[in-house]
């Protein structure tokens, strides 16, 4: 194998591939990236056995071939090479070394046989559709904060992607919950997604997919089967196993009858929550919301370290209410609002509270109160 490639092109391809490679591996080959050169392209394949990223880049291939080499080391080398350098990768297939030259720098890295590299079995995808990068980004970004980190409830360790009947007709819906709060985000259902089986996309996959979505206008090809999901741009293909479990029936916990409506500027609200919660040193800081006509008082009371309250002018016309929340949860859901005011719908101090942006039903959040 002998390939010549421009440093920044190599850098971009390598960085996407190496990010799925775990820092510490018990199987040595998993620390490697599989490099395949053929035609006028070079392909990098990396996997952690759950996710596989295949990244292709244009290159001058003078001799086709394939090998595997430590992903993080190669990435570090490329990163430190000067901008604009031409990088030459060569492996004669006998010495067990990949030679890397750029200008006057020369590196020689140990390789492992390409035959040992685990390539994810291809499978039949029963549902294929295309979605704009910006749409997919919004779906994942707004839901991912609510993903559970509790390993025993593995079926909550991801985003549940499925086709649903939304407020504005058929929707591609992403849901995540950790048992304390829930996010449900909808987008118009793309053509071809009607048969989408519900799949739980793991947390790590969500993070990796987000990295592919820098170009808002790009079309992402999504393929889904019972066990796998694939996201593809023209250069990169990311294939991931999905979580084998059933997502709980989340529709039951989204409150329908909450009738106390609070409208507040989300950013101002978040800043106020952040300020008052400073006085409590506890890990789970409880913030109390006291609602009265057009008035919201946020307060934190930590008898030993102090107390804080802040009054906000809000739109509220229902009967007075007092309710407590984990400050972190409030900050996180308020952070999902970017254009309009946050609208909270309460029922009582022990019931789930619903939040959405203005009257937009395409993204709703549920947060459970805290009893202090």
């Amino acid at each position, binding site marked *: 194998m002998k390939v010549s490639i421009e440093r920044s092109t190599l850098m971009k391809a390598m960085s996407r591939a190496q990010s799925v490679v775990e820092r510490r591996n018990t199987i040595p080959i998993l620390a490697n990236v599989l490099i395949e050169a053929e035609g006028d392209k070079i392909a990098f394949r990396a996997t952690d056995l759950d996710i596989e990223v295949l990244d292709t880049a244009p290159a001058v291939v003078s001799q086709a071939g394939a090998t595997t080499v430590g992903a993080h080391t190669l990435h570090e080398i490329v990163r430190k090479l000067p901008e604009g350098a031409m990088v030459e990768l060569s492996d004669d297939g006998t010495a067990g070394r990949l030679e890397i030259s750029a200008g006057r720098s020369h590196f020689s890295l140990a390789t492992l046989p390409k035959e040992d590299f685990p390539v994810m079995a291809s499978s039949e995808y029963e549902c294929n559709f295309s979605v704009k990068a910006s749409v997919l980004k919004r779906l994942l970004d707004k839901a991912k904060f609510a993903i559970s980190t*509790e390993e025993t409830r593995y079926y909550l360790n991801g985003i549940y992607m499925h086709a649903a009947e939304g407020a504005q007709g058929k929707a591609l819906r992403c849901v995540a919950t950790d048992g*304390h709060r829930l996010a449900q985000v909808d987008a118009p259902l793309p053509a071809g997604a009607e048969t989408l089986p519900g799949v739980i996309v793991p947390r790590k996959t969500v993070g990796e997919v987000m990295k592919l979505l820098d170009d808002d206008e790009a079309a992402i090809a999504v393929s889904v089967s019972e066990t796998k999901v694939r996201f593809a741009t023209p250069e990169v293909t990311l294939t991931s196993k999905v979580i084998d479990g059933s997502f709980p029936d989340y529709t039951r916990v989204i409150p329908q009858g909450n009738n106390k409506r609070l409208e507040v500027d989300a950013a101002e609200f978040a800043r106020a929550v952040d300020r008052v919660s400073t006085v409590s040193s506890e*890990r789970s800081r409880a913030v109390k919301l006291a609602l009265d006509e057009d008035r919201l008082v946020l307060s934190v009371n*930590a*008898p030993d370290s102090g107390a804080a309250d802040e009054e906000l002018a809000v739109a509220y016309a229902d009967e007075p209410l007092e309710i407590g929340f*984990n400050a972190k949860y409030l900050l996180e859901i308020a952070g999902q609002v970017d254009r309009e005011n946050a609208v909270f719908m309460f029922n009582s101090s022990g019931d*789930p509270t619903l939040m959405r942006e203005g009257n937009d039903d395409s993204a709703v959040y549920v947060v*459970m109160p*805290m009893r*202090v």
Partner: protein
Amino acid sequence: MNAFDPNISQRQPIRQLDDAAANRIAAGEVVERPASAVKELVENALDAGARRIDVTYADGGKTLIRVSDDGHGIPAGELPLALARHATSKIDGSDLLNIRSFGFRGEALPSLGAVGRLTITSRYGKDEAARIAVNGGAIGAVEPAALTRGTVVELRDLFHATPARLKFLRTDRAEAQAISDVIKRLAMAEPSVGFTLRDVSGGGEGALKFRADPENGDMFDALAGRLRTILGADFIDNALPIDAEREGLILTGYAALPTYSRGAAVAQFLFVNGRPVRDKLLIGALRGAYADFLSRDRHPAVALFLACDPERVDVNVHPAKAEVRFREPGLARGLIVSTLKHALAEAGHRASTTVSTATLGAFRAETRGHYQMDLASRATLSYRQPDRPQSGFAEFAPSARVEPVHSAEETSPEGVEALPLGAARAQLHENYIVAQTDDGMILVDAHAAHERLVYEKLKRQMAENGVAAQVLLIPEIVELGADDRAAILNAADSLAPLGLTIEPFGGNAVCVRETPAILGEVNATAMIHDILDELSDLGQTQTVKDRIEAILSRVACHGSVRTGRRMSGPEMNALLREMEATPHSGQCNHGRPTYVKLKMTDIERLFGRS
């Protein structure tokens, strides 16, 4: 074909077992090993009002057990009756609830007679002494004998009539150990009675295994003396006297400081009305009382005596009377937990003397090492490390930096040295504080001490503010067995204040609605199972509290002064004063000491000045 199939095996007619067989079966319950025979016989001697009890055994008690006492004895005419089943002088049978003696079942002697060769020699008052023998259940005739006073019960060839039981006995050594344990436990409960224990396996006088002379003085002094004999001076020096009463229940005895804990539950001696017991309720209460001071793999050392009106405790639960049942279990538990906690809180920052003894030991070894050095090598090898620069900069070397307290007036106001932890003088290795007191010096592990102080503060806050509960979006349904379900629902009321709300759900399931917010995301199923395990083991649960406190402890570790931080004089003094004011500051969260104290006399001893 299966021989155990009940439909196929041939039916045998129902038969009345003869007395010998019945007695052997009963003996199996009461006498399971030589030690239980010793226990029955010694208890009889105590019930007879003995002031001296001598116990002799051979071959781990398998060939000989002899118990001699100076009690009131048995009249010759009653000797045959003493060997009959359900015959006793201790109760009249009208009230099984009001039992004031050790024995009452009238089973010990006939049982022993059924499984071994038993001889009783006794002299009642001024009567002539008499003897009766029973061999494998066959009672002999009463014969005249010679004895000055009391009763001698001799049991030879225990279990010769039940060879199966003999096979299950442990080695002679292990059985002898068990006998010794029994005697020690009984001796603890009766400080005013003298005990001796002899092993005559080799014939002749044998070897004296244990001796406790009758103790005089008031009850506490006598008990302290007896415990010193049995458990060693270390125990008494590190134990707190306990004396409390609540609604007619009286708790006395000694409880050791947490820093004097053990790796196994071997030093826990519990007595109810003078009767040694191993009762789940009491052991659970003990664990509860020490929960805060010891990690789970350490066990407190105690000798506690619970006394109450015999009517309020049922001792007729267990054939060997090792378990008891209280009429008000909550009261007994509450008394133990609160009394011990209170006593430990008062002892506050006291760390055990074993700690400072160990320190002294460490110091001494080093002294000897230097002493052996000959003069020539002392001249070349300087006391300091040889490669250390000899210049005046040595004192700035960070590794052994001594931070002197700058101004005595500013940092050590009048009388500070009279306080328990004294006045801070210096900090060594950027952690250890050296303080001077009126009668010695104190070495404090600043990090461990501060960690404990922060932890106590966090716990106090938690107690004052209550535990916030996070309501669950999707209540967790936990499937359990019917018994477990009932048990956990029973405990639900005590779990609710800790932020864990459990409600009944259909079938055998419970529903977890709220979890403690501080724990973040909780695996409720695993937690419920852990709680249940603990409930069945100990009859109470610490799981939720433990987890919350584990989090607090972690927070405390992050929020405390780290090793490597130099402290100023006022800072060090402030830490010492706060330690004095904070309960339980004598040990860190894992039962390790936070400071050691060297008395002036200890220091003088180090230099041979005493």
